[in-house]
């Protein structure tokens, strides 16, 4: 079985940065990613757009275009790269190497590595509103992916609903591309600037981000897109697909026809791999999600398993680049490829840069607080999309004595469908915590078991241990 110094899962900003750093130090590195090309979600299809479709760069903006440089360095780094690969199991014995089981190119392959870096980033927080399962409803990030990867956009009439920087950025990209948005439904509670004010002095370290945010707001202001503010009670309606969207704006009921509704309530760490590896997690009240416990060099509670980027807590692309570098330097030191003193000098530099990047986060968290209504969802709303389990059923399980998500899962099959709880995990934790009057931290999260990705019978049959 092939052995590497470092295995990296995810070729986004964190994974690519770590791979480049580790290769510079002379480590043997393998990087696997589900996508067909490097870049992660933020820089999806950066190679194609920087190459054959340069017109898209002007639409997607300079932060997007800036990804081309790191992607090029990554491709020249000499790290072995498996795109379109799905990791379905990782084993981390108490002593010794990590072993990864990966389906790639139709064959299941296994290899080992001294250290593992999980750089699987964030996913959008699931937004369980009535009708969110209807065709025609998807996330803002999904629409942005369609735009980046294929130059595709939703036909009229298009509504955007939710809160947060990504929503505003996508709206601005639509304006730049001439894509018509029928209305923007802002769920951000009123008073965002007032809430942000106390955090402003510290956030000034990240003035570049603040300036960009300000420019974004101005662009949208002059675009003439109708904006509904203080939106609550959002619901998608339709028989076989989305037809109408109902909501209240500052208390007033509104109903709009729509072919497409894009939802966004911020992003949260993708928990699947750190949960599979039984890493310790804690509840982040400001971001209303779990994050893995990490050392200041990115190591989890499991020896030689590291997390870099948004998977460790939301910080954005540049923070991911720095945290990827920090983890890779620490791993290089452990492998003896970099001596401690000079490696530590580099780590201190990268940590300063990371701190500057993270300076704006408390301000953003205060301005765009994560939704607090999820625990109080109407009983008939679908929480688990796969097994079609409602909020009422989860509360019922709590009343019957289910102390946590794993028992609710046993009662209801919630979290047992193909997505393995990715779409309902956080909601189930919030509902149980509310129903039982306990903290989300106490309630915990689903236990995640392999395989964490669907494996075809063909891939199982073609197990190639020698690779």
């Amino acid at each position: 079985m092939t052995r590497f110094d470092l295995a990296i899962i995810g070729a986004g900003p964190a994974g690519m940065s770590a791979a480049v750093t580790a290769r510079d130090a002379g480590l043997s590195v393998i990087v696997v990613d589900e996508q067909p090309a490097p870049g992660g979600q933020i820089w999806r299809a950066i190679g194609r757009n920087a190459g054959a479709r340069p017109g898209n760069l002007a639409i997607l903006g300079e932060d997007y275009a800036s990804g081309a440089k790191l992607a090029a360095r990554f491709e020249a780094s000499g790290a072995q790269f498996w795109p379109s690969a799905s990791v379905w199991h990782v084993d981390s014995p108490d002593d010794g190497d990590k072993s990864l089981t990966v389906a790639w190119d139709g064959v299941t392959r296994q290899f080992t590595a001294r250290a593992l870096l999980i750089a699987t980033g964030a996913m959008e927080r699931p937004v369980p509103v009535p009708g969110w399962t209807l065709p025609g409803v998807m996330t803002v990030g999904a629409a942005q992916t369609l735009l980046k990867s294929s130059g595709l956009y939703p036909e009229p009439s298009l509504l955007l609903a939710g809160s947060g920087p990504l929503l505003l950025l996508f709206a601005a990209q639509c304006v730049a591309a001439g894509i018509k948005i029928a209305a923007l439904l802002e769920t951000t509670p009123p008073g965002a600037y007032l809430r942000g004010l106390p955090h402003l002095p510290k956030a000034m370290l990240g003035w570049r981000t603040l300036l960009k945010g300000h420019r974004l707001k101005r662009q949208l202001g002059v675009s003439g897109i109708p904006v509904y503010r203080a939106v609550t009670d959002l619901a998608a309606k339709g028989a076989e697909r989305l037809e109408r969207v109902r909501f209240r704006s500052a208390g007033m009921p509104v109903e709009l026809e729509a072919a497409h509704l894009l939802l966004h309530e911020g992003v949260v760490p993708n928990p699947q791999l750190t949960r599979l590896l039984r890493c310790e997690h804690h509840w982040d009240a400001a971001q209303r999600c779990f994050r893995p416990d990490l050392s200041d060099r990115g190591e989890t509670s499991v020896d030689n398993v590291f997390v870099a980027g948004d998977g460790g807590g939301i910080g954005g692309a540049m923070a991911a680049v720095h945290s990827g570098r920090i983890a890779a330097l620490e791993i290089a030191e452990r492998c003896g490829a970099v001596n401690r003193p000079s490696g530590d000098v580099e780590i201190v530099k990268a940590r300063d840069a990371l701190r500057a990047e993270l300076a704006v986060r408390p301000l953003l968290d205060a301005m765009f607080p994560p939704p607090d209504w999820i625990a109080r969802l109407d009983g008939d709303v679908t929480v688990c999309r796969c097994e079609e389990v409602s909020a009422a059923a989860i509360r019922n399980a709590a009343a019957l004595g289910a102390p946590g998500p794993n028992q609710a899962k046993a009662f209801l099959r919630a979290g047992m469908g193909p997505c393995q709880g990715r779409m309902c995990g956080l909601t189930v934790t919030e509902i149980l915590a509310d129903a039982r009057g306990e903290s989300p931290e106490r309630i915990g999260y689903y236990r995640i078991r392999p395989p964490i990705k669907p494996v075809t019978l063909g891939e199982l049959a073609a197990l190639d241990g020698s690779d």
Partner: protein
Amino acid sequence: MLRRLPEQKGRKVRFLFEGEQVSALEGDSVAAALMAAGAGTTRTTPKSGAPRAPYCMMGVCFECLVEIDGVPNRQSCLVEVRDGMRVRRQQGAPGLPGEADDDPV
């Protein structure tokens, strides 16, 4: 349904969806190509048979599950279109290997 911005360079790819010919651009994911072709629904749920369509486009929601060249449970947002591919909606969800012996308690 989705529309495409002008000047999206790329080779045309043709594949079959439910036996009908669909054209897409090289580099499109199967999910993107299906939505651009107006496919509407990619799968139906095993429990109620409700129609579903891609929700996340990044591999986490599994609403884009289809059958590709006879293989079920493929996440169509993670697979690029290829000439001659045969794609079908996934009706219900065939179990995943390993799911049956899951013992959550």
